[in-house]
Every structure is written in structure tokens, then in C-alpha cells.
């Protein structure tokens, strides 16, 4: 498990997970695949850090989890956004936008 340069930045993982869950519930493995797909293989979630993050977000009340069955008949834990999670997502999206705008501004002017 070597760190690629496109590993998800510390701190943005929560944002990505929340965003991914915005359209419906999903299990951990699904989230990994989804982020990879949507970013055209550019972002790779470090699997080892995904579960602790999910666990923490669950405890913070942003997401809720329950056991379900996949289309291949495997038991898996499905995560979905809670109301608090939706609020958190909005906030983190805004923070991210502010950050990138600010960085872009610096890159242009400095």
C-alpha cells in the first residue's frame, strides 16, 4: 500500500464521502469505487482510512448505517446521509469552494 500522489487529501475525504452519499445509500466498498469512477481514476481513496472516517462520521451523526444485502447477495453495511450530514455537506462544499477560489486568486496574482 504505497501512497500515490493522487491519494485523497486528508480532510477532503469527509467531503467526498458526504457528496457521494448525497444521491442515496451506499456501502463502503461502493463509495471507494464511486469516488474513483467519478474522478476518472484520478482520486483514489485509501481503503485503510475510509472505515475509520466512516465510523467517525457516523458517531458525529452525519451519516447513519444499517446492514443490507448487495445485488450479489453479500451482507454489507449501507451508509446514508442524515439531516445533520446534509448540513455538514453544504458547509464543507462552501469551504472547499472558498478555499479553491482563494488559492486560485493567489496563483493568479502572486
Amino acid at each position, binding site marked *: *500500500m504505497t501512497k500515490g500522489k493522487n491519494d485523497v487529501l486528508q480532510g477532503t475525504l469527509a467531503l467526498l464521502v458526504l457528496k457521494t452519499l448525497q444521491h442515496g445509500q451506499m*456501502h*463502503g*466498498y461502493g463509495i471507494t469505487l464511486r469516488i474513483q469512477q467519478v474522478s476518472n481514476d484520478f482520486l483514489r481513496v*485509501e*481503503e*485503510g*482510512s475510509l*472505515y*475509520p472516517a466512516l*465510523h*467517525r462520521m*457516523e*458517531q*458525529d*451523526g452525519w451519516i447513519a448505517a444499517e446492514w443490507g444485502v*448487495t445485488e*450479489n447477495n*453479500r*451482507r*454489507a*453495511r449501507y451508509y446514508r446521509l442524515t439531516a*445533520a450530514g446534509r448540513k455538514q455537506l453544504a458547509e464543507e462544499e462552501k469551504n472547499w469552494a472558498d478555499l479553491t477560489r482563494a488559492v486560485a486568486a493567489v496563483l493568479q496574482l502572486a
Partner: protein
Amino acid sequence: MSFFARLRGLWRPDQLDADLNEELRSHLAMRSDDNIRAGMSAEEAPYDAQRRFGNATLLKEEARRMDVIQWLETVAQDLRYALRTLSKSPAFSAVAILTLALGIGANTAIFSLVDSVMLRMLPVQHPEELVQVGMLTPNFGNGHRTSYTNPLWEALRDHQDVFSGLFAWGTSPFNLAQGGVVQTARGMYVSGDYFTTLGARPAAGRLLAPDDDQRGCPGVAVLSYGFWQDHFGGAPGAVGSTIPIDGHPFQIVGVSAPGFFGTEVGTAFDVAAPICSEAIVNGKNSSLDQRHNWWFKVMGRPKRGLTLSQISAHLEALSPQVFAATVPMVWNPVQQRSFRTWKFVALPGATGPSFFRGNYALPLEMLMGIAALVLLIACANIASLMLARAAFRRKEISVRLALGASRMRIVRQLLTECVALSLAGAALGVLVARWSSRLLVRYISTQHNRIYLDLSLDARVLGFTAAVAVLTGVLFGVLPAFRSTRISLADTMKGGGADAPGDTRFRSGRWSVAMQVAISLVLVITAALFVRSFTKLTTLDAGFDRDNVLLAHLNFHDVNAADAERTADSSEIVRRIQALPGVTGVSQSVLTPVSGNTWDDMIVVEGGHAPTGQDADVDLNYVAPGYFNTMRTAMLEGRDFNDRDTGTIPTVAVVNQALARKFFPGADPIGKTIRRYATATNLSGPIEIIGVVRDAKYESLREDFPPIAYFPLAQLPQGAERLNIVVRTASQPSLLAPAVEQIIGSVNKSIALDFSTLAQQVDDSIVQERLLATLSGFFGALALLLAMVGLYGVLAYLVLQRQKEIGIRMALGARHGAIIGLVMRDVGVIVVIGTVAGVGIAWLTTRLVQGLLFGLQAHDAGTVAIAVALLAGVAFVASYLPARRATRVDPMTALRHE
């Protein structure tokens, strides 16, 4: 939500674990499925999944670390492990726990006194609201006068409208015996609003109410819970019965609740009676209308929403009117003018006024500092023990590091061990503290001043102990924990890696010992200062001989006799005591030295440059013939009083050297006259000085010899209600007390009497100094002991380290002396560094205690020298033993060792 989620985790830890396991399995399975779908072989697929995933165990730990349960689990696990490890070395654990119990116990004991004396609020309803009313007076500078006369209190009570309840109280010993040896109860006169304003509740019967405190009231009394238990066994029948107070029956109407000790920290009351009933006890001598008898303190509960400064402003506005109406008539015109300018001021009253606090705040703060330093030494000591132990545990630690434990995890484990040790020490320490703080309170209580402090463990004391325990554990644990986890794995696993003498581990041990030496030297110097000033006090020449003197305090209060008969009574008593075997002298006096009672007045000396006004104030006493001889206060000039010095002409006096020097410098005082104020404005007739006696202490041993004027007892204007019979004996004075008691009883049964010895009275006047000397001595010795154990430990370790080297030296023919010198040179350096630092610190800090010392400077070189010599001596012994052992090393064994 998150908090509750974690809490829920507490109930189903296994469930949580199982969930996580299954989730990870399902992730790996899905990845593996996809791998196969992508064309990987069935064997390869799970491995790849696993590889992508990384360390599942670590991950699980990571996920679980979020949980309280996980945290608690680790703590419990660490704790179990710590207990197992500690129980494997019981000697080490016992020494550490005992040291800590002493250190933490001492700190807790002193802190519980500090808490009780300075921090705790009164045990009444809403104590934070209480306000004490003091007075700003020109004579008191920035301080406040807080005692009231009854007329002043009544005027204040009737004029103010800022308090919803205002109350006064004054303490006074109540004699419960009917004649004979007194049985003193701690009495308290309270105003009618006292209990209601404080919100106190009765444990039985009722408490006093405003109706009870009206002029001409009948005698009623409230008992404290403790007194009710001790004297009535808590019998309900006590309420309604009567007790005699100074011979007058008072009906008991109720008992106050347990835990209520009154409103003055440092004392507790036994019996409370309304102020008006003082007239019953003292009859025509009642203080109710006297404007110069200051016996009350005043506190109140302000009306809602008023600030301290608003109350003060209001009180200040009514001050001129109140003071003008209560001017003490016996004061001279200057004092009276000053009195009219006094102003009331509101002071915070939550912790209650306390005479005791004023006396003991500084000593307690100092003892707190000393106790903290002792604990610091104990910490350093245990830290070096831990370091030495760490050497033996290197294998274990390196194995755990090699197995992948993180360094922080092991540090945490080691710290848990330390905190477990210090918590065990603290638990034991609380017991030590409970016992020793009670002992201390008994130690500072005297015959006439029984100290009461509420020493129940409150949250603040327990919090303090817990905080000290954890802090201590971390303090002595952090350095060893980090040190012992900084290990070269390869070296240790190979079995080598023994410390070289220059090893950092040893160096830090050396620094810690130097620090211990320094701190213990500071404590030893402090102790030496207190012990020496106490010795100076106990051995100083007080101007009288304190040994073998029995004092009988007589109170004629209940005696129905004219003054002449009273005198006849006492001369009969004196005659018969004189005849007792073993009595070498008997006399009488109104006051005895350092008794706590004083009497002073201005004298007037005509002509010359004699002092006038306040500067002409001298101490007084009325004594019978033979007093000076009995006290062994030498008569220097002139004559003693004799049986003819009675009546009014001529009035005579004996003065001491200080008075003669001050009022008659360079002249012979014999035959000169002095005058006193007969009333506030009129002078008495001339009083002739017939003798000069040696200087003697009057109020306290610490004072410079004050000017004293003695007058003949037979010329005391109204006769004495209280009198002391002073008996010099050939042997143990208290043995004579029963015989004296019998004589007094047979002469007059209604005389109340109370015995003590002059030596006891002198001892009771230096309780605080004795406390400081004893405790600082104890702590100093403890510190010295701990430092020496530390020194011994480090040196023994050092000798073990250098065993091989010493063996070689001895094989090459080094003599024992040379080896001892070699080892001790190292110690010498440590001790010298510690000593220099200690003397430096002491130089800076002992100035703080100057005010508590007597007869020597805080920077007294002799004391410092004694302390350094003591330390050096003990250090030599502590280091000589291991050094000697070094010479017993058999060269062959040492060399074969590796």
C-alpha cells in the same frame, strides 16, 4: 448524538467489534470478487484485496479508538497490566506507595486546613450573600475594626435599612459548674436575628428568635449539636431542662443542626444565649449599656440587588449620627473626637470573620509550600527508582516495540503504571491526612482556646488530592517513560546494551539527585530557622521563672460578699496554702504574664520630657506582697509592697526598668510620683514609686520588654472579681492542685476556679511557633531522608555499572581508599552542586518567613552552616555505604561477568 453514540458503545462493545469485522470482511470479499471478474486468479484475488487494504488490525484499532469504550478498555487493560507488573516487584511498589502516601498525605492534610480556614464558606444558607460590617478608623490604618459595643450595635441595627437581616454575636466562656473547679463551655451571645438570618435549622426544639432578645428577657439557651451529644447523650429531654450559666439557670429551648459551628472559623460554640441575657449573668456589671466594652461582631444579609459599594455608601451616610450617639464616655476628649469620625464599611462575609485565620494564614501558606517541595523530592526519588527499574525492563519493552507497538502506546502504558502508583499512594494519603489534620488541630488547641475546624472532606479537598496524585504520577513518570522507550532495538535484543557510565540515563539520575539535595537543603534550612527561633523563645529569660508555678484563677462572680470580705477570703486562702508542704511561695495578682489578658492605661509624669498621650501608655498589674519574689522577678531598688500598703494614702507603685528608663531617663525613679486618669478628664492624686523590678514579658514572649507599672492589690479601687493565686512549688506544681482546690472550697464554696501552670501558660502562648518548628522539622527530616535514599540509590546503581572497571583497577592493585575516593568523588560533585543551588534558593526564599522568626535573621549564616553540615554528614553516610561495597568486588568475578 455523538456522545450518546459513544456511550451506547459502552453497552455493546462486542457488537461494535463484530460489526466492524464483518464490514471489513465484506469489503475484502467484494474487492476480491471484482478482482476475479477482472481476470485475476482465485488465489491471487484475496491477497490483492488484502494488500490494497493494508493493515486491517491497525485499521480496526484506529476505528475503535474513536470509542469511549475503547479508551476505557485500554485504560482497564493498561491498569490490569500495571497492577500485574507492580505486584511482581512488591518491595519497589511498597516503597513508592508509602513515599507517595506520606507526600500526598502531608499535602492533603495541610490543604484541608487551608481549605477549612481560608477557602470554605460558612455552613449556612447562601453564605455568599453575607456581608460583614466593619469600621474604618484612623488608628487602624488600612485595616478594619470589626468589634462593637452593645450600644453601637443597637444604634446600627435601628438606623440601617440596607439589610434584610442584620445580626451580632460575641463569644464568652460560660461556666457550667456551680462553684469549685470551672467547667467551661464555649458560650456565645447572639442577637435575635442571628439564627433566622443565617437560615439555621434546629435539630431539636427551636432556635432563638427576635422575641427572645428583648431587654429584661428570661434566660434561654440553644445548644450546639456536638455539645448536646457529649453532655446530654442527644437525649430529647434536654430540651426544656435548665443549665446553669455562671450560676444562673437558663432554660434550653433547642439544639442547632449538626455541622453548624457558629460564624467564626477556628472556634465552635457549645451554648448560645440571647444578648439581653448577659444582664442576668453579669448583673450590675452588665455590658449592655457600656459604651467601651467591645464584644460583638456584626454581619448581615443585604436586601436583594445591592452591591457591596452601595451598602458601604449607605452605611457611611448614617455613620456620623450612629457614632455621635454612642461615644464611649470614659475615653479622653482626643479619643472621643476621633470616635465621631469613624465610618462603617461593608466587607465580604462569605467565609466569616476569623481571628484564627489572621494568625495562621501565613504559617499555613508556608507549610503548604514546604509540603509541596517534599512531594517534589518524593517525585524525583521515585523517578530515579523508575529509571533504575527501566533498565531491567529494557528487554520487555524492546520486544513490545519490535512486535509493532507504537512508542506512544508504551509510554502510555508506563505512565499508567505511575498513575496507578500515585493513586494508590493518594488513597493511603487521604487516610494519613484525615488522621494527621485532626492531630494538628489538637496540637494547636490550648487549655483556654480549643480550636475547632470543619475538616470534613469536601469536593475541593478530594479534587485537590486527585489532581495532586495524577500530576505527581505524570511528573515522576514522564521522563522515565520516554527514556526507557528510546531504545536501540537491535542492541537490546542482542542481549548487550548495558549502560556506559556516561549514559544519559545516569546523567539525568545525577541531576535529579542534585535537585533533591538542593530542595532538601532549602527545607532543612527553613526547619533549622524555625527550630532555632522556637528554642530561643523557650529558653529566653522572660524576667520570671516559669517552672514550678501553679496558677489558680479565682472568679468571685457568684460570691455574695462585700469587697472587704473578698479580700479576707483570699488572704485566708493564701495563708493556708502557704502552710502546705512543698510550697515555697504564694502571692496574688490580677493578671499573670502571657495569659492573653492585658490591662493598659496612660500615666502622667509631671515635668521634664516625659512621654505624653498614647506614648505614655503602659501595662498595668495589681499584685499582692511577695509577688515578685514568687515569680522570681528580681527587686532591683527600693522595696516590695507590704501589708501596710492599703487604703488610699499614700498610693504607691513599683515599676520595671523599661518604665524607669522611658519616663525617668538618667534619674532615680524611687520617690518620684506618677498620676493616672481617675476619669476621662480628671487626674488621680500622686502615686509614689517605691521600688524598681527587673524587666519581664507581659503580653507575649515575642515582645520587647514593655514598661509595666505594678500597684498593690489592696489599693485596687473596686476590688477584683477575678484573681490569680500564684504558688511556687518545690516539685511538679500540678500535684498541688487538689490540695489548693480543697482549701479554696473550704473557705468559700462559691468561688469558681480554674488551674494551670505558668509553664503551660507560657507554652500555650507559643503554639504557632511550636507548630512551625515541629512541622518544618518533620518535613525537613523527611526531605533529608528522601534525598539520601535517592543519593544511595543512584550511587549503588553507579557502582553496579562500574563493577568491571573497579574489578580491573583492583586487579591492577588499586587500594580500597582509592576506590572509595573514586566513587565518592562523583557524589561529591552532585552534593556540592545541590548544596550551592540549595543555599542560593534558600537565600531568595527564606526572606518570606522573616515575620515568623524570633531573635534571628532569615539569612542567619550560623543556621545555614548547621543545615549544610547536617546535609553533608548525612550525604557522606549515604554514599559511603555503596562505596564500601564497591571495594568488596572480587576482581575475578567482575572480570568474568561478561
